[in-house]
């Protein structure tokens, strides 16, 4: 990986010459790149023994979280999965606090109590990441019961494997009956852990929500603009009272299911074909093509993100661990509830 150089960082593209869509596109690209570099960092720090347990990386799927995160409003919320670092960053969770959490530090977004699979950050609209599949679906379904009082929408991220789970069937029916403002964002990365989705899934995934009367759509999940457009329309339909929405976002993870998985189940040539559709490559091509961003403008973002991540690693490694001797409260103390 090329390191940021002062020269690259000091050669800014003149931002004032870029169009609105180009500037916005560059920002979407930057957010996806932060996720990519963040995940590579987690992988590298895992190998060095600084990240513990297990991790599930979002590499290759960045357009989904960034596209959805970009269309949500302040009163909206989302729930992610155990592959949730991208979901968190897409919602605006501070990358430093997230990295500190991965390293189990007191400055982590959950004080080091949660770790990779269970991140919660309500200040950034993240209800939580759920380590058991389907939890994100029910959490978002319930959040929608509350959020619709404030014109809000809830989003559930989950993988295609979850569409075989009871949570999926129970909650989508529940939400459809109640006409809840919720977007069910199915990220189909073709494999449930190590098993190809088609080996364990009967029929078409989209047919399942459709039969419940839920609006469905299948999109290119590696094109952040496509995700943004579909998610934006779906979220606004939900907000307008049209009930739950379903998107199947076709994507691919470039790394194993978890840290111990070499991906031996992949079909020959499959990974290479998907890398031609790398969300970062798709975005760079569009930025430097139809959006008219000079390559140096994209390079500048690359360099800035490299520098940001390098500084983050240094800060995370220097951050103190939580103090085991501090008192812990099993229960929330009683607040005053008179309305």
């Amino acid at each position, binding site marked *: 990986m090329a390191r940021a150089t002062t020269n690259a960082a000091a050669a800014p593209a003149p931002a004032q010459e870029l169009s609105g869509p180009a500037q916005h596109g560059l920002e979407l690209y930057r957010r996806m790149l932060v996720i990519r570099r963040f995940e590579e960092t987690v992988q590298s720090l895992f190998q060095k023994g600084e990240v513990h347990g297990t991790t599930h990386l979002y590499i290759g799927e960045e357009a989904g979280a960034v596209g959805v995160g970009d269309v949500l409003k302040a009163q909206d*919320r989302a729930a992610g999965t155990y592959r949730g670092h991208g979901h968190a960053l897409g919602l605006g969770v501070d990358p430093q606090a997230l990295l500190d959490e991965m390293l189990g530090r007191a400055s982590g977004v959950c004080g080091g109590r*949660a770790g990779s699979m269970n991140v919660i*950050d309500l200040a950034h609209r993240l209800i939580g990441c759920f380590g058991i599949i389907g939890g994100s679906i029910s959490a978002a379904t319930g959040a929608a019961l509350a959020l619709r009082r404030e014109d809000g929408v809830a989003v559930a991220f989950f993988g295609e494997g979850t569409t075989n789970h009871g949570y999926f069937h129970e909650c989508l029916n529940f939400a459809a009956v109640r006409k809840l403002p919720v977007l069910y964002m199915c990220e189909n990365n073709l494999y449930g852990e190590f098993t190809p989705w088609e080996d364990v899934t009967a029929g078409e995934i989209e047919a399942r929500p459709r039969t419940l009367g839920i609006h469905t759509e299948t999109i290119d999940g590696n094109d952040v603009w496509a995700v943004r457009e579909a998610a934006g329309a779906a979220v606004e339909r939900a907000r307008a009272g049209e009930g739950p929405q379903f998107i199947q976002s076709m994507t691919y993870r470039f790394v194993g299911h978890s840290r111990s998985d070499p991906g031996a189940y992949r079909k020959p040539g499959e990974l290479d074909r998907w890398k031609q559709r790398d969300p970062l490559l798709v975005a760079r091509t569009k930025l430097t093509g139809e959006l008219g961003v000079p390559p140096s403008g994209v390079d500048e973002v690359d360099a800035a993100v490299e520098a940001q991540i390098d500084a983050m690693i240094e800060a995370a490694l220097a951050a103190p661990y939580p103090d085991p001797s501090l008192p812990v409260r099993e229960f929330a103390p009683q607040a005053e509830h008179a309305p």
Partner: protein
Amino acid sequence: MADLEFRRAIRDALDEELARDERVVFFGEDVAKPGGVFAVTPGLFDAHGEERVFDTPISELAITGAAFGAAVSGLRPVIEIMFGDFLPLAMDGLVNQAAKYWYLSNEQASVPLVVRSAVGAGGRFGAIHSQSPVPWFQAVPGLRIVAPSTPVDAKALLKGAIRDDNPVLFFEHKRLYSIKEPLPDDPIEAATLGEARVVREGGDLTVVTAMRGVHDALAAAEQLSADGIELEVIDLRTLRPLDLPTVLASVRKTNRLLALEEGPLTGGWAGELVARVSEEALGELDDVWRLTTKDLPIPYSPPLEDAFLPGTDAIVANVRGRLVAA
């Protein structure tokens, strides 16, 4: 003076909390328009409207998971899981999500959620509609378990559970729904959770129990009093966390402890109570034991079920045998 029926007390607590706090919502299977399969919740739908009191699909995963999501997003949901035996279907939402959120989130938010559920045997419902699922949850940090024994207490404790900021399992024993007691003159206020109550004073043996067991223990105490054995009966009211100080104060007086639990011997709250009391007050105990059911499923046939449960006659025989033999 009017009487208050147990099921009416539950209904009134819900009605008053729904009226008091617009964040409170109530949902479950058959609870709204039909008014509940145990006729506990009639009229709430009409009084508070479809947005706040509604019937759900038969979907315990969805009901419980949605209640969790709503509770961390500004509502204070009360849900009904019809029979406690159905709670295994809802375990993930309760154990992995609701119970851990306050801690895992580093205290970003608590989970004000109440799960009402009908529990207990003696109604000839058979093995899978009669259990008292306390042991399944007592090993879960972050959960409270409330188990009232009287109508007035049911109302006070349910109001307290709804106002508590933590996930609360609220167990209603099926053989208590039809009991009545005089309605007090003063309004029934919300009770603080976690406080046991001495419901009968006596110097010979402390009997600690809950729900239906309180009534059986009090009836046994009257019979044993004729023999000159005076029981002190404690109604735990909250089964998790246990109110150890109230139990210890009593044990220091009687020097004997019987933990009476309607549930299997292995892994129940009675075992936990005996362990805690032994750790704290071993030197003051002359005797300590449990009376529970056997480690077997609950039978259906009436003579089998009656013999299976630690009812009044079983308590009397058990205490006589233990104290006279000793």
